């Protein structure tokens, strides 16, 4: 379940999910939408299903599901939840100033 977008990959994002749950699907859809709107052509999304690769949870200290990890640009940031609140996702990705 890897999805890659061509172009300048300045943004490296990882979405951790545990199985194809509704919430995972919602989160992925929300993420896709936000990326297309704000980061078109300069991002890559890697979706990691922990049910298939449980060991990967340790590396990024994943506790909550779903978790979006911004690997690049640094610093690493994490956004938890189904990404339904676009404003907060943008804040979390440092695409918008905190208010």
């Amino acid at each position, binding site marked *: 379940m890897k999805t890659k977008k061509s172009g300048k990959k300045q943004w490296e994002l990882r979405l*951790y999910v*545990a199985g194809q749950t509704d*919430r995972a699907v919602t*989160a992925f859809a*929300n993420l896709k939408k936000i990326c297309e709107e704000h980061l078109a052509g300069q991002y890559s999304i890697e979706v990691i299903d*922990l*049910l298939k690769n*449980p*060991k990967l*949870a*340790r590396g990024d*200290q*994943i*506790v*909550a*599901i*779903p*978790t979006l990890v911004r690997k690049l640009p640094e*610093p*690493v*940031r*994490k*956004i*938890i*939840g*189904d*990404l*339904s*609140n676009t404003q*907060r*996702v943008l*804040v*979390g990705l440092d695409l918008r100033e905190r208010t």
Partner: protein
Amino acid sequence: MAPQKRKDSILSGLKKCPTGIKGLDEITEGGLPRGRPTLICGSAGCGKTLLAMEFITRGITEFNEPGVFMAFEENADELAVNVASLGIDVKELIRQKKLAVDYVHIERSEIEETGEYDLEGLFVRLGNMIDSIGAKRVVLDTIEALFAGLPNEAILRAELRRLFRWLKTKKVTAIITGEQGDKHLTRHGLEEYVSDCVIFLDHRLINQVATRRLRVIKYRGSKHGTNEYPTLIDETGLSVMPISSLGLTYPVSAVRVSTGIPRLDTMFGGKGYFRGTSVLVSGTAGSGKTSVVTAFADSICGKGGKCLYLSFEESPDQIIRNMGSIGFDLGKWVKKGLMKFRSVRPTMFGLETHLVSIHKLVEDFQPTAVVVDPVTNLSSIGDTDEVKAMMMRIIDFLKNKQITAVFTSLSSGSSDFEQSEVGISSLMDTWILLRNIETDGERNRLLYILKSRGMAHSNQVREFVLSDNGIALQDVYIGSGTVLTGSARMAQEAKDRSQEFLDNQTSEHRQLELRQQHLAIDAQIAVLKAQSEGIQKEMKRLSANGRQKNEMLHQQKEDISRIRKAD
């Protein structure tokens, strides 16, 4: 068969999972509830993590049950270093696939929350570890750290509830640690979710001395000790002292053990103390308490027994040197491993800690006799009631093990001699009292038996004499209504001897006199006898003369008449 089996398991009640921690399994009557989570709570530094880690590592080494340690506060390396001091090699256990450690860390500042989520990530990590090593035991230390990392408390609570339920379905015995809170047992009320077994660890300061305690607050479906139990953390880990749960049901023995002082044995009906009883030797400073107990310790070791000497006053070397001066060579028993000293100041740690360390020493060394010298020094770290409670625990514990215990007690010179300072006299089976008496410019030691349960014992006061050759008990001088000791006794005895000598002389003299008188009388008798014999002879001679005279007269008459030719 199947229904029968089920019935059995219901009747046998809750299955237990032994922790392997000294004392804890006794209090909980077998261990933690198997397959269920247990909450361990307490303030910072009370030993929660240590207890949890021991539960896991002892599970591996003693019960061959692999374990998972999920740490929220320390990472795996820190954890390994922290428990390495207890001789636990975390890395090796991990290599053997007996232990899995995971460090869960959430940095609040890194996290943005948007919308719904759950803690499936945690479940996945935990589940993966449990499955990979076939873990039977799980520790979550301290899961409450999640409350600091994740902003949504409602989600967190719901997920924790789900987590503990899930742990039960995994059939693992789990320990959840939690920091002590203000209103609840734990800061975030974890006891709400983990309700099968709750253990509380306490670490408090009394008189600047730290004391650790453990209490089982609840244990669903099982009996358990309800008291606060003293707890000790040392180089071998955590140990709990279950001793206050002991009752007055210890076995008794009719076997006697020598006191090490022959004449003192005589005073105890010729045989000494009962084995497994408690003996108190009390007296003022310098009255020879240590000497009396040393004699006992020496005699125990001399018969091949083992003696544990707990000193609260002197160092081992000092005791060995001092007792050498009265002819006891304790050093050789130490070398042979029959005698073990433990010298600590009472203020080193709290009463409970002393209690637990004594308990441990006794368990490890397995002595036949224990000497505590002096027990009164403990009163400097606790009030009389506490010391008494502690003594009671020690005595019950030792009695259960059939160990003869001898305690010395320092009584202050001014107070009543028969008032032992820590009020422990009623706990003692035998009480020997030593007294110093000062007369004629010298101090002398007296010894007598105040009580000795269950045996005929002497009611006599003996003088207690220490010399290069050891201890001797002497009769005191009793005569003309006074009791004398020391040089006064010797002087009086000398006086008595000379008086006796004089008396003897006088009577001999008198005898001689009488004999002489007797002889004189005999002599007189002889003289008188001779006189009377003389008189008798004279009388005989006289009467013979008379007859001769008469005959002569008659002859003369006849002669005259013949001459005259008369008819």
